[in-house]
């Protein structure tokens, strides 16, 4: 069964070092995984922590854009957050403007669900990061963007769904989305950044399904039979 979207909630803050989302309902379906996506207007924060419903998460390896750009994106993940009405919270040192999204999915691997975590930064639109995936995976991303004025974010990836999108100000936006791997080859979460002189930091991670994904067969396969022949029968 493919990883499936469950629910999401988001909030934004001015000069904050903690954010908590509104309550949202986490499914009671099996194999739930939660992800927190954080967009920050600055890059010097440390000491990140996060949870959904009190289930602590950990930084998803490879997704923290750090100081690669003037804004920052990163993702936290946890396995099996509690079902029912829950909130998502992240805390850090050094207050900045921030956008926080919490998202839950189900039918996800419970041992090592977060694969291929990565980030990309740039100074042009669109923001796009490509991952190699397998059928059944769900790719999630978080983006922080900045422009000289009149900024906006518009989801642009084929099959990508925006889960939260906050135009905090003309010069800072944060958003997050998810998209399923239809062909199990490559997947490219993408956002169009409005305004002039855009900058972005985009974090992306692949969520593996419970039971493993299905790799795509990209070349003809040859079947071989080996065995001993006695008479005219294969044994």
């Amino acid at each position, binding site marked *: 069964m493919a990883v499936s979207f469950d629910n999401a909630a988001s*909030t934004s*803050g001015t*000069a904050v*070092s903690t954010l*908590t*989302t*509104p309550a949202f309902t986490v499914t009671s379906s099996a194999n739930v995984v939660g992800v927190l996506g954080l967009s920050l207007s600055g890059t010097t924060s440390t000491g990140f922590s996060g949870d959904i419903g009190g289930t602590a998460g950990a930084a998803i390896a490879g997704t923290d854009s750090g100081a690669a750009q003037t804004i920052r994106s990163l993702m936290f993940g946890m396995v099996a957050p509690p079902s029912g009405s829950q909130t998502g919270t992240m805390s850090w040192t*050094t207050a900045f403007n921030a956008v926080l999204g919490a998202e839950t999915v189900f039918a996800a691997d419970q041992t090592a669900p977060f694969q291929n975590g990565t980030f990309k930064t740039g100074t042009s639109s669109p923001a796009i990061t490509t991952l190699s995936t397998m059928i059944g995976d769900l790719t999630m991303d978080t983006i922080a963007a900045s422009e000289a004025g009149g900024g906006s974010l518009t989801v642009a990836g084929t099959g990508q769904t925006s889960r939260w999108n906050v135009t905090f100000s003309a010069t800072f936006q944060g958003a997050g989305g998810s998209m399923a791997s239809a062909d199990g080859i490559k997947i490219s979460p993408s956002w169009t950044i409005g305004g002039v002189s855009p900058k972005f930091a985009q974090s992306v991670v692949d969520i593996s399904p419970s039971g493993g994904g299905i790799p795509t067969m990209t070349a003809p396969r040859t079947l071989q039979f080996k065995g001993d022949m006695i008479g005219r029968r294969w044994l």
Partner: protein
Amino acid sequence: MIASGAQAVGVTSWGPITPPVGSVTVTVALDRSGLALATQNIFWAQELSTDGGLTWLPWGGAGTEPGNLVDDLLQPITESSFTVDLPAPADANTQLRGSLTTSEIVATALTVRTG
């Protein structure tokens, strides 16, 4: 919602209030002008009722560090805040209430704005 002044240590509650009908966003802002000499983080949060106060759900929260903060233009940041969307435009049954949590006596205020 919490008038300006010295806030006692612990949790100070505000509300419930009824936002203007049709409101779709709520911002809860903390006045930073008295935080220069504070030493502890401050937290504030909100709850939402859509049934006239019968049931409540957590509806956003934030925390901030003490001290003087400046923006990219080195101008003092006068407030910290969080903003959330309401699940539907506010009606006569929509209510908000919340809290301010401090670990030391600090001069501040909380303001609720809707949009």
